[in-house]
């Protein structure tokens, strides 16, 4: 391996600063002891973190996003795993069309999904419901779960499964005891990526969420368009820390580079 020149290393350092600057800025501002936006030059304070506790709107939105992420990521995985097994291991007419259809939300702007769901739900009486919001999120994140499940199921040997079937195990036992453990990293990685994607989603949710189903990003967006204060910075800091923890877990058991290759 050839060494990098000093120019390349300086470029790299500037790039990393560029990537981290806004995140560091958000975190720095959240520790201010002032009542207005400022860097904590005089002293650090946790007052804006305590202030979150006095704002039930953010707390409620946090739990709404968590609950929504858990429900929709789980259901997306339940839809995606069988489909991934069929697509990866069977040749059948319509296979490519089905795969393209199930991955198609990746190509659709979130705004378009948002307005489509807004109209659809209001016409069938699901407007503003949690079920509607969850269904919209399932559509949005199923492609992520499917992609990671496909990556683990492709090229998987069928020998062990055939052996178990021959020995009298039923199909569900084979799936539970053999297939699932083999594809588990992809399934768990897909679940986590789906959860994070659902938790962070703004553009589609802004159209689908009602005052009683406001998610955290939607709540934060509306707050930012009104006012930018240290409170929104401290909420963001909590979110950054939480995401970093999830990211490290995801990287540890699946690999962050593998998660993102081909994403788009």
């Amino acid at each position, binding site marked *: *391996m050839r060494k990098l020149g000093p120019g390349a290393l300086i470029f790299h350092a500037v790039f990393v600063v560029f990537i981290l600057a806004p995140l560091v800025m958000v975190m720095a501002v959240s520790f201010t002891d002032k009542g207005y936006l400022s860097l904590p030059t005089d002293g650090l304070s946790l007052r804006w973190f305590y202030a979150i506790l006095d704002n039930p709107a953010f707390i409620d939105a946090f739990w709404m996003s968590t609950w929504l992420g858990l429900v929709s990521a789980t259901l997306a995985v339940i839809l995606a795993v069988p489909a991934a097994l069929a697509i990866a291991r069977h040749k059948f007419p319509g296979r490519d069309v089905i795969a393209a259809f199930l991955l198609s*939300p990746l190509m*659709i702007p979130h705004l378009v999904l948002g307005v489509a769901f807004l109209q659809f739900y209001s016409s069938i009486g699901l407007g503003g419901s949690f079920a509607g919001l969850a269904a919209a999120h399932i559509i949005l994140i199923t492609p992520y779960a499917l992609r990671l499940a496909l990556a683990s199921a492709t090229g998987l040997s069928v020998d062990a499964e055939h052996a178990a079937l021959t020995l009298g195990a039923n199909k569900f036992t084979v799936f539970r005891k053999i297939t699932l453990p083999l594809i588990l990293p992809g399934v768990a990685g897909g679940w986590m990526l789906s959860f994070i994607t659902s938790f962070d989603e703004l553009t589609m949710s802004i159209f689908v969420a009602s005052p009683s189903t406001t998610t955290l990003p939607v709540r934060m967006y509306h707050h930012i368009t009104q006012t930018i204060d240290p409170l929104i910075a401290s909420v963001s800091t909590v979110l950054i820390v939480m995401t970093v923890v999830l990211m490290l877990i995801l990287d540890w058991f699946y690999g962050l580079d593998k998660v993102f290759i081909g994403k788009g």
Partner: protein
Amino acid sequence: MSGASLRKTPYALTGPGVLFFAALLGAPIVMTFLLSLHSYDFTLGIQSDWSLGNYADVLTDSYFHKIFGRTFGLGLLVTVCCILIGVPEAYVLSRLSSRWRSIFLLIVLGPLLIAVVVRTLGWALLFGSTGILSMTAQALGFADAPVSLMFTFTGMTIALVHVLVPFMVIAVWASLQKIDPQSEDAGLSLGASKFTVLRRITLPQAMPGILSGSIIVFALTTSAFATPAIIGGRRMKVVATAAYDEYLGTLNWPLGAAIAVLLLLANVVIIVSFNKFIERRYAKVFE
């Protein structure tokens, strides 16, 4: 297992997903398309007639020309910036030792998992007239008065490059992974300069990654909502924020639907034709 049941298996496995998608993705998209063909009356609401009037409005109105033009220009500019900084960064990453590489991959890719609202908020804090960039510019003598990049095209571009450049890095990095390092060594040992090796050997092999990274960045820029809404605001409307205003501001849903359909069509056409182009072009190269 009998042959017939084996043949049905893949349909049974994909069935739930396909049915769910048909009902909850197919139907809403079709309804949005149909809605875009109705006209809207500001006192009577959505009419039941059929016409292409909304499309005619969008395509002939100079207000929308400006918005579509700005969105397209933003897409191009952000894509070019992402190429200019993302490609060298991917190259640097591919040259780092594996321990440093895994740390920096985490730093470069990690922000993709952090909510766009949070990342955009960071830029809003940096850009504001009391923000750190303004103070630095004043301290260094670049500006006499506080400067703000909020509500400017430049500010929107910088924030979007930050949000989307990881996609470029990962796409290029993936294709650099496939390069046989011996081809570069061969070039060097045959007397080519480092720059020639970079230009004639490394760059052409990274091209599929640069192209697919570009298409992802372009598509995501032109359909971005959160960053243009927060940094661009009302002064710098783009297609997504304009559609948002039609839906939730003026309540002219049919017109908003027409904008959304045009945005979707543009996205699908660009992505599909670009993928076709890449396949054709690189099928030739690697034959």
